[in-house]
């Protein structure tokens, strides 16, 4: 990887790329997942512009390698918590695209019955616990999930995704400290896309080496090239194994970049177009597809097959969402309490 853009922090572990794989099925699955997330989100942007999706819409485009690479490392019994930029995580975790799209439409067939929207995707059956719009707010929950597993004697791992902005929150520090103190099975997964909304890392952190922060709480930590899906997968697998083995929590930093604005309504005054263009050269989908073909892992035709499959799935998801129904307003106050309560 020669085209590595400038970095504020120390270098991540070396890139691996498609050459690091020998299983064509795995390569296809990774590419499929990344393309699926990419196309799904592009469709979301289109539907947002058409007024079908409302609220805030935060797109993951550029960062797909992380969800696609990391999620397969987790078992069904593990717990996943994510941020408000979590469409990719939900898709990668297996939440049906139709249920996600319907949620963004606000339909009751949505994965949160239309109560959450883009930022609050939930699927308890897949142990996908959101979907949180409070930066740093899900880290303490992750500690609690892990504590419960520990107390109940289960070997589950709790994976908690968050961004570089969250490391400025007190809850990040409290949570890393408590998880390390109690040696809980939490995997802290930091997607460092270099901007907390519009504020560059160096403009909000005195120490831009995030792994060093984790180390201060005596968490083993590692920084990974988040644009390299294979590197992400390898590092995450190793971390999951370590945490599952009962060796305490771990911190992983994925160095990545979002290609699109923070949300749909963001003129991007805070970064140069040249910088964005430079990172686009490292697009995780394109680089992986190119390398996988180049090293003979995938046939040149696979890309088109995947695109067709994905287009079909997304069309079906949109149709599902369009056909979805509105929950009756009489149900407005349902699910505030388990029992019907008149406050």
């Amino acid at each position, binding site marked *: 990887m020669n085209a590595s853009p400038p970095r504020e922090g120390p270098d991540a572990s070396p890139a691996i790329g498609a050459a690091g794989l020998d299983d064509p099925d795995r390569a296809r699955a990774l590419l499929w997942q990344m393309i699926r997330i990419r196309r799904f989100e592009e469709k979301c942007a289109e539907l947002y512009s058409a007024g079908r999706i409302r609220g805030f819409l935060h797109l993951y485009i550029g960062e797909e390698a992380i969800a696609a690479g990391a999620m397969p490392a987790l078992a069904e019994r593990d717990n996943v918590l994510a941020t408000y930029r979590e469409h990719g995580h939900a898709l990668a975790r297996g939440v049906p695209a139709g249920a996600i799209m319907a949620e963004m439409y606000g339909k009751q067939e949505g*994965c949160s019955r239309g109560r959450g929207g883009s930022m609050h995707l*939930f699927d308890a059956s897949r142990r996908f616990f959101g979907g949180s719009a409070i930066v740093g707010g899900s880290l*303490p*929950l992750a500690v*609690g999930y892990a504590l419960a597993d520990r*107390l*109940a004697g289960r070997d589950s791992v709790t994976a908690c995704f968050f961004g570089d902005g969250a490391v400025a929150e007190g809850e990040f520090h409290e949570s890393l400290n408590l998880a390390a103190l109690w040696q809980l099975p939490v995997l802290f997964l930091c997607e460092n896309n270099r901007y907390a909304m519009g504020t560059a890392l160096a403009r909000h952190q005195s120490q831009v080496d995030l792994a060093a922060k984790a180390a201060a709480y005596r968490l083993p930590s590692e920084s990974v090239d988040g644009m390299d899906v294979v590197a992400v997968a390898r590092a995450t697998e190793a971390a999951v194994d370590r945490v599952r083995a009962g060796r305490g929590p771990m911190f992983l930093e994925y160095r990545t970049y979002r290609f699109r604005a923070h949300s749909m309504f963001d003129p991007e005054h805070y970064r140069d177009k040249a910088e964005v263009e430079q990172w686009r050269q490292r697009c995780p989908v394109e680089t992986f597809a190119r390398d996988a073909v180049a090293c003979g892992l995938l046939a040149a035709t696979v890309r088109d097959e995947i695109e067709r499959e994905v287009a079909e799935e997304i069309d079906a998801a949109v149709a599902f969402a369009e056909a979805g129904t509105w929950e009756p307003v009489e149900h407005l106050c*349902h*699910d505030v*309490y388990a029992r019907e309560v008149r406050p």
Partner: protein
Amino acid sequence: MTTQTIAYREALRQGLRAALAGDERVFLMGEDVGRYGGTYAVSHGLLEEFGEARIRDTPLSESTFTGAGIGAALNGMRPIVEIMTVNFSLLALDQIINNAATLRHMSGGQLSVPLVIRMTTGGGRQLAAQHSHSLEGWYAHIPGLRIVAPATHEDARGMLLAALEDPDPVLIFEHALLLGAEGTVEGEPHPMELDHAAIRREGRQVSLITYGGMLHKSLAAAEQLAKAGIDAEVLDLRTLRPLDDAAIMASVAKTHRVVVVDEGWRSGSLSAEIITRINEQAFFELDAPPVRVCSQEVPVPYARHLEDAAIPQVEDIVAAVHRLLG
């Protein structure tokens, strides 16, 4: 059935012990609940009895240990989180309000947070403005939370047990001045339901509507009023959210006069909420404008005479009733 006379903190401890013994999923977590024996000695002896896994001392990280309680509750446990005072709970406000109160609804009913958070509230101990406030009314504003304020010894242990059976987050407010007060309990701890207010004294002429630490001042005021020939009813709300509207309106329909005694400040308060509901639901039962006895609108000061002046006292309640009855 045996009657015991015990301190309120002992009643709380009996409730905790019964909960820990009765359900493996229950554990207690908070600052100094273990080796120290609890800031207010409520959990004294429980570490030895139940071990470090279930009586967990935490760092001074209110947000994270409260959030961890929520996470553990989401993941099948029945945690009891102890926060030292209501003022400190403000550090955990994000977790309580953005997570505990919202997750069931935001997930479309998929998630459940069967968490109990206990904290002390109220003034009267010369602890000044960062340890003495009564913010339970604030929490009672939040849909998704259940707010309870046990004022009697039976409720102190029994409402905790009932709270643990509740599938939703329950915040228990224990008035600090009650901790040392003695009272009686009957037999073994048993769950005390969380849905209804209780008439602690029957009366015909005026309803004193109150809860928590103010219950005892209201009862003392009712005693004084009785000597002056005024027959006051005292209604203990017990649960501040959801409010037992039926009990409130029934009392108003009986006495036609209301004094709400609330240690919280009056502006934008629980007392305001109660009186508004009375106006909405029992307007034509009112025979005089409703009256409030609340704390003065000042951060609670340290000096004894000033603190006493800031917080409602028995004579304030008596005076309010006299004023109301003309």
